[in-house]
């Protein structure tokens, strides 16, 4: 029996993050996925600058160029690298703008759902009693129904629009965060540092958000990553079903839906390319999230 190292304190925060990064980077697939995520984000943010054409500008779109296969060149010498859609829009440009919209909807709804769900989860864990019971009943109720179903009902009632889609996505996602955070926060609450903070007379909000919250971050990060991917996919599905974003704001899901009609006649590119972009986006976010889960999961640590 060797002596236990006499160092009960956790490593410095900065060092801890560096250690996590080193462990994360052990998996090359995850690092590659992270790079792809960064590139996609950059492409989405810069889409108005890098897209060859503004797909919303009706003056540059020519109906005679509709449904041209990838690699076509129009009489003006404009290259349609990925072909054109049913309205003669350059697919590549439409996809970049669509990606921007899809990512925006996914990230915004994810962040709002985190803020809402985490707050409720912390409140439930710290206040306990009736408040806890009430919040967790609602969480159980929400989680009892599949995301797509709830979103479908909400949008059937609310109608189309970016704000409505984001609202519906927040409504279907917050419960996951609330449940995860409540579980972690309950464990943290029983620890000594919380007792110390209480005995020092700190206010409840300060203890909950300043002391307990930072220690609940790992599950929030993992679930948050996965949920953003899920939100992007759900938005695309809803738009495909005609219940998400309006025609005037073509996200990737809507671009794919537009191509559905042409798919059966062999004009594959209108559906295939936006779908591939959607797949790469969701896939790389999921790979990163998967690795984060492995790195941050205390049950798998050696």
């Amino acid at each position, binding site marked *: 029996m060797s002596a236990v190292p006499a160092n009960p304190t956790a490593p410095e925060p900065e060092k801890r993050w560096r250690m996590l990064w080193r462990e994360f980077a052990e998996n090359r*697939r995850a690092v590659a996925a992270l790079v792809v995520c960064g590139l996609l984000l950059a492409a989405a943010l810069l889409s108005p600058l890098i897209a060859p054409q503004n797909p919303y500008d009706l003056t540059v779109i020519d109906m005679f160029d509709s449904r041209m296969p990838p690699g076509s060149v129009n009489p003006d010498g404009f290259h349609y690298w990925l072909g054109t859609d049913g309205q003669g829009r350059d697919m590549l440009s439409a996809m970049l703008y669509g990606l921007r919209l899809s990512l925006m909807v996914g990230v915004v709804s994810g962040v709002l759902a985190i803020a809402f769900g985490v707050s409720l989860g912390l409140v439930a864990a710290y206040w306990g009693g009736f408040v806890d019971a009430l919040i967790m009943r609602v969480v159980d109720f929400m989680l009892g129904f599949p995301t797509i179903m709830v979103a479908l009902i909400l949008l059937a009632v609310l109608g189309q629009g970016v704000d409505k889609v984001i609202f519906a996505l927040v409504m279907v996602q917050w419960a996951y965060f609330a449940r995860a955070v409540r579980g972690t926060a309950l464990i943290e609450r029983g620890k000594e540092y919380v007792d110390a903070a209480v005995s020092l007379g700190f206010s409840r909000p300060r203890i909950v958000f300043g002391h307990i919250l930072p220690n609940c971050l790992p599950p929030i990060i993992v679930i948050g990553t996965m949920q953003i991917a899920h939100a992007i996919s759900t938005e695309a*599905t809803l738009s495909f079903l005609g219940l998400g974003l309006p025609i005037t704001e073509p996200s990737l899901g809507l671009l794919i839906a537009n*191509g559905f009609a042409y798919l*059966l006649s062999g004009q594959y590119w209108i559906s295939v390319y936006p779908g591939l972009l959607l797949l790469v986006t969701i896939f790389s976010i999921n790979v990163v999230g998967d690795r984060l889960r492995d790195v941050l999961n205390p049950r798998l640590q050696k």
Partner: protein
Amino acid sequence: MLVFIIRRLLQSMLVLLAVSIVVFVGLYAVGDPVDILLPDDANQSERQAAIRSLGLDKPLITQYGIFLGKAVQGDLGTSFVFNIPSIELILSRMPATLELALCAMVIAVLIGIPLGLWAGLKPGSAADEVITTGSILGFSLPGFWQGLMLIMIFSVWLGWLPSNGRGTTGTIFGIETSFATWDGLRHLLLPAINLALFKLAMMIRLTRAGVRETMPLDFVKFARAKGVSEPRIVLVHVLKNILVPIVTVIGMELGSLIAFSTVTETIFAWPGMGKLIIDSINKLDRPVVVAYLLVVTMMFILINLVVDLLYATLDPRVRLKGVSE
């Protein structure tokens, strides 16, 4: 046990009531079904007559009261579009959806669990890498796009399988099903695979994670020390332990399969409940939408109840609330 079931069923009544209010009031705010139902050249008096015959002229609370009164007697209203009782319409579409969901679940379990076991027993190996990456891919594929790709490859390019409808159905034990005929099976294959892929990926991940967390536990070492053969340890002792979360997920996901089948049914023109709800939302056929949601809510409640009961049977450590006292 009985107390538990009764309490849960009473809770379910409240949930159903809440869902019905939310949906009824919500749908009331959207569009005017009369516009869609009447021909364009209908005059004002025809309009008024239609509004009156549909009961749309009464205040919202009265409409809900009438709806609730009839609902208790099993009458959920008549479809505006098909002009038959909406509950009848939904029940007539239900077998097609259940058949699809069940078939998808069987595919997911039969392929997913073995692959998950394989990956979990050899973490870090090439097989694990391929299976895990594949499962993340399956997780990431948007269901509707994957359906389009299946149609493009197997129907348009290769021409092997039909892309829409249910094909010829036959009857087995008095139930109309696609299992009965070769043509029906051919029609079933693509939609079932499309619906199954996501769940398949989920099964792989669950099983793999379960195996990885169970293998280092003491009882496995003990069994090994006792000389139990490795296949027996994995297939009996480990599998039994990871079955609890898997069964829960199978149960819960059966509900979600029914919900997700809306997407698959829309793409493959499969005449089930999911296609019905999308069509009904688009046509503002309120009675059908309300009835569908109530029926589906009821199904979820029942499924969740069965899962909880199964859970307690599989794992004696789980005590049901209301049973312990």
